[in-house]
Every structure is written in C-alpha cells, then in structure tokens.
C-alpha cells in the first residue's frame, strides 16, 4: 500500500499541498483528480522523492522510500524519461542494465501491442508514441506499484484507446496503480478509487463501485458536485 500522510509543499509563497493524506492499495487503480495546478503531479514526484516536501511522510508497504524501493515502484511521467537521442532499443538496454525488475519479455510484448519499432529514435516519435514508449519503460518493470501522470494528455483518440486498454489487460493486474488524469472519461469505468483534490487538500475520496451502487453517482457526477457546486 502507498500511504501518503499530511503532505505539505510550497512553491514560493503558494501552498500547493496543504496536508494531503490518502492511500493507494495494491491491486487497485486509484485516480487522483483535481483541477490544473492542484498539486497532482507534485504528489507523484514527492512519492518518488523527486521534489522536496516541507512536511509529511510517505510509506510504501510500510517502509519509507529508499534506493531499493525503485525496484518496486515505477513512475511514468508525462514527459519521456530517456534521452531523445536514444533508440527505443537503447532505452530498453539502459533499463535492463540498471533494473533487476526489468522484464524484457514483457517489454517486447508491449512494443508489439503498441506497434512500436525498437529501431525508432525517441526524438523522432510523435507525442502519442513517445507516451507509449514511456508506458513500455514503466510497465515492463516487474514492480508492485505504478504511478502515471496524465497518460492521456495531448494525444490522439486512438492512442488514448490503446493506452486505456492497458488498464484492463494483465499488464497492470495485481499491481497498485496511482494515476492522475484530466481525461477521466477514458478510464472512469476502470477506476477503483477516486481521490478528489482542491486547494492542496483532499476534498473527498471514495470507492467508485460503492459510490455507483449506494448513491447511483458516477465519478464524473461527484466531480461536478465538488468542482461545480
């Protein structure tokens, strides 16, 4: 379980995170929802220790993040994390060299699934294909948790559908996924848990299925209540 406790973070004088707490369970898809600038990306970066916090604690399966944790949790940001001069093959070789958890078989499977050629240079890929490469590099790690930052942002509808279909495949099965997205409609039916953020605080968090059964509300319905009261 990813446990985020009382995170506080300021950018200059603006408090971006103001006591954020939530959990994301293994085997579930948890979606962080919020307006632009609400701190969703900052939370993911903080979990990976890519940005310092003023206050707060983060635990992965009860342990604070250390260098070994990077073998159990992967972050797929909205920008490519490999050098543009590399080919996809070069990027995969880099991953294989440094990560014990790298699964080349799965990487090849994903390349075929996304119809990518390993000989292609990253700098020459379209935005959609770059995001797919980013997905390959994250999903081909045998990790327990996946953090995804806006995987559907700025890419065409067919690429979005392809990426969305990953969530129903065995590629994320039994893993904990923490995702931020604006394009909620693409994955609304797949979300197990939603965490709604506003002004640096968690406004509400709920189980999507229970909400649907008990109140007859979809995630979008709850979002409307929170963000457009």
């Amino acid at each position: 379980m990813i446990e985020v406790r009382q995170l506080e973070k300021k950018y200059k004088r603006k408090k971006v995170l103001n006591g954020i707490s939530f959990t994301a369970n293994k085997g579930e898809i948890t979606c962080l929802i919020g307006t632009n600038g609400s701190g969703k990306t900052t939370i993911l970066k903080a979990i990976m220790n890519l940005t310092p916090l003023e206050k707060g604690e983060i635990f992965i399966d009860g342990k604070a993040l250390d260098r070994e944790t990077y073998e159990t949790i992967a972050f797929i940001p909205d920008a490519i994390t490999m050098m543009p001069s590399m080919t996809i093959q070069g990027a995969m070789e880099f991953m294989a060299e440094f990560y014990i958890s790298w699964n080349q078989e799965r990487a090849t499977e994903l390349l075929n699934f996304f119809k990518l050629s390993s000989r292609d240079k990253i700098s020459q890929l379209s935005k959609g294909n770059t995001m797919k490469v980013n997905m390959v590099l994250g999903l081909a790690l045998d990790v327990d948790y996946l953090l995804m930052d806006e995987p559907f942002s700025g890419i065409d509808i067919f690429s979005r559908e392809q990426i969305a279909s990953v969530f129903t495949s065995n590629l994320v099965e039994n893993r904990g996924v923490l995702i931020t997205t604006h394009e909620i409609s693409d994955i609304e039916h797949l979300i197990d848990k939603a965490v709604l953020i506003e002004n640096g605080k968690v406004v509400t968090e709920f189980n999507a299925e229970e909400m649907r059964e008990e109140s007859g509300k979809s995630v979008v319905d709850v979002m409307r209540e929170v963000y457009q009261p």
Partner: protein
Amino acid sequence: MKNFVKLVRFEFNRFAPIYATLAVLTALIQLIGVFVTTNGYLRSVSEQKQSGIVNDSEIIANIGKMGMTDFVNSLWFLGPIMFCGAVLMLYSVFIWYRDWLGKNTFIYRLLMLPTQRLNILFSKVTTIFLMVIGLIALQLVLLYIENSLFQMLLPTAYFNYSNLNQMIQSSYYLMMFYPTSGLVFISRYSKGLLGLLVVSTVVLFERSYKIKGLIIGVAYATFVQLIFSAVYFMQFYNVMLYLFASEIFLISLVLTVVASTLSIWISHRLLNKKVTV
C-alpha cells in the same frame, strides 16, 4: 560499485563522439602545425642562403635551430590544448544541465535508478576527470610523434633534439600537466578533482534553490578558492617560514581532502533531500 562503473561507462559513451573529435582535432592541428612550422623555418633557412650565408653554423647563429622546445610554445601546439580544456570545462557544467533542460527529462530516470544518488555525482565527475587524463596521455604520445616528425622533416644540422623532460620544461603549460614530482602530481590532480566536485555542488545548489542556490553555490566555491589562495600566499610570502615544503604540501592535501569531503556531503544532501525536477 557496479552501478557506478555502469554509469561512468554510460556517461563516457554519451560524450564519446565529441571527445573523439577533440582528440583527433588536437592531433591533426598539432601535426599540421609541425609541417607549417617546419616549412616556415626551412623558408627562413633558404632566405639566409639566398642572402649569401652558406655556412650552417652561421645560419643557426642567426635564426637558431628548430625542434619541439620551440614548437611547444606556439599557437599550433597550445591552441588545441586550450580549446580542449575550455570544452571540458564547459562540459563539466553541461553534463548536469543536459539532463534537466529543454524537453530532456532524463534526470527523472537518473534520480529513479535503484542506486545511491551519489553515484550520479561520482560518475559525472569521474567521466570528466578520465577525459582530462585521457587527453593528457594523448598529448604525451603526440609529443613523441611530433618530435620524430621534426627529426624527419628537418636536416640534421638544423634539428634541435630534445628529450621528453626538456620538452616539458620548456613550456609553462606542459609543466602544469606533467609535474616531475609525484607529490606535486597528487596535489595538482587532487585539486583538479576537487574543482570538478565544487562545480557539481554549485550546479546542485542551483538546481535545488534556483537563483538563491546559484548565489549560495558561487559563495561556496569562492570560499573554497579563498582557503587555497590563502595557503598559496602564505607559501609565496614566506609567512609560514617555520614550515617545511613537505608540511605545506600536507596542509594543502588535508585541505583538499576536507573540501572534497564537504562538497560530497553537501551534494549528497542536495541530491537526496533538496533537488527538484
């Protein structure tokens, strides 16, 4: 350790094409320089002969002999060395920023590697240091080749033979790179390594606190520089008359170790607690 070696290899390969170009360019310019200098010299010799001086010893008395001791102070020789030095100095900063700036967010990947983040610092500093050592070793080989080339191109009477030691001793810059004493070698190269560590610390300060960090970083680098300048001036003005040269060397070495340790510690803190992507 294994990850450190892998990272050094990776960093080295990233710069290898430019590094190889620098090495080839250095060799090429210096070798062309030997030909041009020899031609110029032989032209002077024939001008002397045309003016009626036929005796070799008289010509040599007028224009001197030609060899490496003259060539090592020419722009043909020093130009490429200075160019390589400038490129490597710039790259010691750019080696960090190339992972951060523009569309490139490779720093995400580096910081998320399942290894100590300090390895990122060590690999970048080691890469630059190895490249410097590599070019200095190449220059040593070039000195031999260029000396042989002068010998081939010049008539024996006009060739000024010099051994390696004489070549080095005739250039202030070569004496800097190839000190004759082992202790001076250690002192000089450890200071070079410290310089690279301090530059990296300044970059990490800037990456952690932006403009404020840059000011702190520059202040830190100035502070380190001032300490070493103080030792140098004390030595220069004989303030430490009661200390032997070996003791002053020891003080300098201890200061280098302390400043390097401090830089590594600060960089470790910044990389793990403060740096932001």
